[in-house]
């Protein structure tokens, strides 16, 4: 049975949610909340169904012709459903969190409408079956995130939005040019095709390298690779759920996922190595890893520090991709999931600190562990995972990346990994130390910048539980990595698929 409706319905669920939310009046809060949650649950169910089909070896494909030789293709393959699963799971968490976060503020209809659009585009990116479809959703993502970034409507937010657009739209144009060039050279090329572009190597070697540079350059802007990362720290003015989503799943990951698709499913890993582009990419990724970490240390506010940490962490994925060999690939794919879980936890916590206690700067966090134990515990789990301590999820990634580097005989990558871990520790451990071991307002010294009593627990339940939930999941991803359907297991499945072709 061909389940063409499956990927289409999954995207349509979010799109429909967006349309309904837009058409509801601003005041109908309850209905909007239920529609949001309902759509998220439906989506998780559909993605689960797709995962089942992939396990059964039967990919759901939907396709129709747009013009002449160009098709719109949605295809639920192993790599796609991996990203789709991440995005739908985190969407549910973020929706719950956002409902709590934005309670009582203005323009919530606009926010949740574009939020749903944003997630629909992310899912589209995950399930896109060819570069054309990918491009459609990629640009949709750019457009639907803009209103979220400028949500607060302050000058700072509007400026950040402008810079965000400058970077991403220029990248979109570069990408469009690259994709058109590729189509003119090779014609329609599905991600499902097993042949790669090797056939064109003889005639178009330079052109293929150029197109690769255009495509990866375009994606690298969203993946925030140095020197194209400028928009990300500025986009931190967005509300916390937006930052969480942007960093963990939507925008940054879309860029990284694009690079994955180009190398694995479009060019083919052998061709990429043959062209020599992977080494260049590995160097760029390493520079980004180190640069992001160093800049993160220099930040005194919590959210910018997390932002630079994202810049650094996302490049782990790119690094893993550019290491030729299955272990590098497994590391990259697993990190796509792990980093999403950990980073979303960290941002949730940062948002909770800001809302409940008015904390924005790191030196204000002294002793917050006593006042908000659960939040701080979640934050600690995320931070330790980021550093890569065993048995947290981040450790697994780094372990596999290290093995991959040794297999690819790129020993300097090990040095980068070690240095990066040290730097991660240097900017996360002080925060953890402050949370638990420094004496602060909770112990009667001074007062919090702006304390609100949002809920019966340490904060509003809608804010707290998503953070705890993602922290538990990320912890489980590390502890139970050996079980079936863990991120590592799924990454291995995808990688095996890639290398056995």
């Amino acid at each position, binding site marked *: 049975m061909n389940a063409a409706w499956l990927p289409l319905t999954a995207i349509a669920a979010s799109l429909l949610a967006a349309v309904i939310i*837009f058409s509801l009046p601003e005041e109908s809060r309850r209905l909007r909340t239920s529609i949001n949650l309902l759509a998220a649950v439906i989506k998780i169910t559909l993605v689960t169904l797709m995962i089942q089909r992939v396990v059964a070896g039967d990919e759901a494909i939907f396709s129709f*012709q*747009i*013009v*002449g030789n*160009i098709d*719109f293709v949605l295809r639920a393959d192993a790599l796609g459903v991996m990203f789709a699963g991440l995005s739908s799971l985190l969407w549910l968490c973020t929706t719950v969190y956002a409902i709590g976060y934005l309670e009582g503020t*203005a*323009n919530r*209809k*606009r926010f949740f409408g574009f939020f749903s659009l944003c997630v629909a585009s992310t899912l589209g990116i995950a399930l896109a079956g060819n570069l*054309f479809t990918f*491009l*459609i*959703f990629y*640009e*949709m993502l*750019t*457009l639907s995130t*803009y*209103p979220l970034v*400028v949500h*607060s*409507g*302050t*000058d700072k937010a*509007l400026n950040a*939005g*402008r810079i965000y*657009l400058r970077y991403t*739209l*220029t990248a*979109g*144009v570069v990408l*469009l*040019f690259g994709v*058109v*060039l590729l*189509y*003119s050279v090779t014609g329609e090329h599905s991600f499902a095709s097993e042949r790669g572009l090797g056939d064109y190597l003889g005639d178009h070697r330079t052109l293929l390298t150029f197109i690769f540079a255009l495509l990866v350059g375009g994606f690298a802007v969203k993946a925030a690779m140095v020197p194209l990362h400028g928009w990300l720290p500025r986009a931190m003015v967005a509300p916390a759920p937006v930052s969480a989503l942007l960093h963990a799943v939507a925008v940054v990951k879309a860029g990284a996922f694009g690079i994955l698709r180009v190398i694995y499913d479009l060019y083919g890993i052998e061709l990429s190595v043959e062209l020599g582009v992977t080494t260049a990419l590995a160097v760029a990724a390493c520079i980004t890893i180190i640069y992001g970490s160093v800049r993160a240390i220099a930040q005194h506010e919590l959210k910018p520090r997390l932002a630079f940490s994202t810049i650094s962490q996302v490049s782990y994925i790119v690094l893993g991709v550019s290491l030729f060999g299955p272990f590098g690939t497994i590391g990259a794919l697993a990190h796509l999931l792990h980093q999403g879980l950990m980073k979303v936890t960290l941002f949730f916590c940062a948002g909770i600190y800001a809302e409940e206690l008015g904390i924005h700067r790191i030196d204000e966090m002294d002793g917050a562990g006593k006042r908000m134990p659960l939040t701080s515990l979640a934050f600690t789990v995320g931070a330790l995972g980021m550093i890569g301590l065993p048995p947290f999820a981040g450790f697994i990634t780094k372990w596999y990346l290290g093995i991959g580097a040794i297999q690819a005989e790129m020993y300097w990558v090990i040095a980068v990994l070690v240095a990066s871990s040290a730097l991660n520790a240097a900017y996360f451990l002080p925060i953890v130390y402050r949370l638990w071991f420094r004496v602060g307002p909770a112990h009667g010294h001074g007062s919090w910048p702006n304390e609100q009593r949002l809920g019966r627990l340490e904060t509003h339940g809608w804010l707290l539980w998503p953070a705890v939930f993602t922290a538990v999941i990320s912890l489980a991803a590390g502890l139970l990595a050996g079980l079936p359907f863990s991120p590592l297991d799924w990454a291995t499945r995808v990688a095996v698929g890639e290398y056995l072709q």
Partner: protein
Amino acid sequence: MMWRFGLADSTFEPLLTSHWALAIALCLPLVLGGLAAVWPPKRMWVVALACAPLLTSGLLLLVDFTQIGLLRWQGEVLGVSIGLRLNGVSILLLLLTQWLGAASALYTPGLLNVSPPERLARWLWPLMGVVVSALSLVWLATDLITLYLALELMGLAAVGMLLLSGKTPALFASMRYLLLTLVGSLAYLLGVALLLGYWGQVDLAGLAQVVEPGPVTWVAAALIGGGLALKAALFPLHAWLSPVHASAWTPVSALHAGLVVKASLFVLLQLWSILLPDTFWAPRLVAWMGMLAIIWGGLIAWRAESLKTLVASSTVAQLGYLMVVFPLLLGPNVGPLAKALAWEGFWLQLMGHALAKAAMFLAAGNLILATGETTLKGLAGCSRKLPLSLLVFGIASVTLMGLPPSAGFTAKWLLLQAMVISQQWWAVAALLIGTLLTAAYVFRFFRYSFMETAPRHHYQPLSPGMDIIALCLALAAFVLGLLAHFPLELLHGGSL
């Protein structure tokens, strides 16, 4: 090129229904316009009811066309033979005209109800009728005399329509335009005279068979091209466009920017493909002008103070996209694949822009009407109270920017592919830069609209129908991009 314009013999006679549908399509707008001048409609449903037969006639023609292919009519009036044809391009443009005309007409009662009563308002209806009729005739006509008649009728009625709301700067601009366009029409007439005198043909198909390249053809093509460029507001001759649109009534702007300026372009392309097939310089010149138009129009829109100026200036830039395609359609050394892609992209871009620009004008009109402010600064913070109008504006601007999933994107994709295949890198650069410039001026407006610090206005409530019409047009541009396959199939359907 000839078969693409349907200037070939048809295989079958038109059906009886086609005759009636054609008569309704051409005459009904005039009749309705006249009736509306006597009894101006006050409600939307009256207009909808009146437009229904017109839209039905278009659909009937579409059905007939898909069934029997190219339709031709030949007739004689006072000894002058008149030819009409219905091929893929004309049926698409005819449908577009009818739906856009109907949308503008539907929008009008809402507008007139909320704005202060105008003495001249009732004249809007007959002029609109003439414009729609004349446009339909332009898409169908196959001889130079009918084309001339239709173009002039359309041009004069359009100027009249634009003037109705007359504020002084707009009157000056349109006075200048009127004089220029009249001289332009003389240039066109002289060109036609030249063709008639030298080749003895006014029928396009006949002309195509006898015409040969030579000084006479070149001069005639130059005269006709110059005259039509004056009418179409092509790049160096665009100055009148924005002041006129800044004060014209919203549905008038929508109709004008969406279709009227394109009619001249359509005729230009059609005549040049007969007179100047495979010439190098003439289409190249148009393309260079188009590149300048993209950049200049974008910069003007970027600097615009008022919303309507922004929208009107973007028309200049968007026409530039169409001009850039000329070398691909007419020039030498273009492969058949590139030509086919460019042909599809050209019409898709034209249709997508027509829908999106009309939607944009209607949305901008709604914003201005509801707030009473015309400048971007004055409209700051309008996202709070007018989310729907703003959303429509956004959807329309996605098409203008050429971002997916919209007709603008699909068209841009086709055009880029054609340009890459035929290695016209300058045109590629122009298209890509155009995207960024469009984004720059569109988001400049959005930046204002999202401001939360702006003072709160008193908002005038509008009838929801006005927003819904605009939304439908904007969504149509989206759907056209995703379902581009079907209209483009029609473009080929008439080729056999």
